[in-house]
């Protein structure tokens, strides 16, 4: 049985399309689990943790000041909801969504800059989430941050945008899974995704 995740599929999709000029070796390392999070990602994790648990310890008080109104709106809703389904014979797709409110998914994103709605639109992540959680809509909350060198805290800008589940979504996901599995087999990486 193989296990795939939306992040694996997106890494594969972007590398195959030649986006961000990432070499194939980086994708292979990612599949092998040899992934080292950047400081930027670690800061993103601290923000996620705050939204998830209210733990303020990892953020500066000025950052908390900016993010608290968002936390207050979202604090009572379930976070980190996990699910998995066997989408194709012998292939389990597994994922964890940041938040579910009713039947609408909410995903928190952070980054030093906002790369545009298209980057998220093209991703397989929201499609897999909508399918796995039987959700008709996903809302992205993007926090771009800027930390001037003379300042100890980051300033945030916020964007909210959404996507809807659509008719041929499941087929699109299955197509990319097929391609990904083929790639894994050609590269001899099956053991890294076998459960």
């Amino acid at each position, binding site marked *: 049985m193989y296990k795939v995740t939306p992040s694996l599929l997106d890494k594969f999709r972007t590398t195959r399309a030649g986006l961000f000029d990432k070499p194939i070796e980086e994708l292979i390392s990612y599949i092998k689990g040899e992934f080292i999070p950047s400081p930027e990602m670690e800061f993103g994790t601290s923000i996620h943790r705050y939204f998830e648990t209210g733990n303020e310890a990892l953020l500066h008080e000025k950052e908390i000041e900016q993010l608290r109104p968002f936390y207050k709106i979202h604090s009572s809703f379930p976070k980190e*909801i996990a699910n998995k389904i066997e989408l194709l014979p012998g292939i389990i797709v597994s994922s964890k969504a940041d938040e*579910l*409110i009713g039947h609408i998914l909410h995903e928190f994103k952070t980054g030093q800059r906002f790369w545009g709605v298209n980057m998220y639109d093209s991703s397989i992540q929201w499609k897999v989430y909508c399918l796995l959680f039987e959700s008709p809509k996903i809302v992205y909350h993007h926090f771009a941050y800027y930390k001037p060198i003379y300042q100890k805290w980051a300033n945030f800008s916020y964007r909210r945008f959404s996507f809807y589940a659509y008719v*041929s979504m499941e087929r699109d996901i299955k197509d990319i899974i097929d391609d990904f599995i083929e790639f894994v087999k050609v590269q001899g990486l099956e053991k890294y995704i076998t459960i």
Partner: protein
Amino acid sequence: MLKFFNETSDLRTEHLTAVIFGEPGIGKTSLANTSKNPLMLDFDTGIQRSVTRHNFVRIDSWEDIVEFQKSKELVNIAPDTIIIDTVGTMLDNFIADYVKRADPKNARRGGELSLQGYGAMKSVFKQFKDWTNKVNCNLIFVAHATSEDEGDNKKFIPKLTGGSYDILRQETDLIGYMYSYQNRRVIDFTPKDSHIGKDCASIGMIDVPEPKEKAYPTFFEDLISRTLKRMNEINDEQKKIITEIEGLRKIMFEIKSSDDANNFIETLKGKIKTVQLQCYGELVKHCEKFAQYNKETKLFENV
């Protein structure tokens, strides 16, 4: 201060914002005019090429819009739909010029918009969109298509500058790409690798009827009605599910034994997936002091 949206507020949707984008001369303006009682704000003299003509106002500067919003003409026409033709010209030329004139800090030395300028443009755009809601109108943006490189792929998107494009994307509910396909005119609302789309009502790709056909005069009006109906179904379901989960949580917090917990699991089995997933996690957490969840039997056992 950052502004956030209350995610559980009552979201009955009476109006929507749509984008029709596509090849030049494919009939986007005419198609937009098949919406309900439309009024076109013509930024591009596109009305001259339209096969369907309704009320229109020629716009020469953003001040014309401000004036028009207060005019008796608007009251007399009482439109149900406002069409912006084209949104690229409206945002990149008219609103951009307007904000640059309003404050020199909104422009860089080279004349292009500054970061602050994009913020100001977003604010003017948002005000305009809110105004269309206030006057009870749907809003349709017509745009030319351009292709964007996405690695080795080419993707068709509405033709606007980067900042304007993101403003538009954040504010729209329905996006369709109109093009020729096997000698037919089609509009595709499905998001694809080859073009963007937004489609909550499962419209997918459909043929655009010819102007002589019976379905043509209300073609886009029907698509808007279908989308609004679905958006409201989603909102109604949302309210129902939130209420259901609140009720289930009350029952769940009363659980004091593994038997009660297992009975609750039986109750959850009849619920939809999103409800089950949200309750399972909380149930495990709630029961951890007196019961343990057995992943194999999928039942709680006494600790």
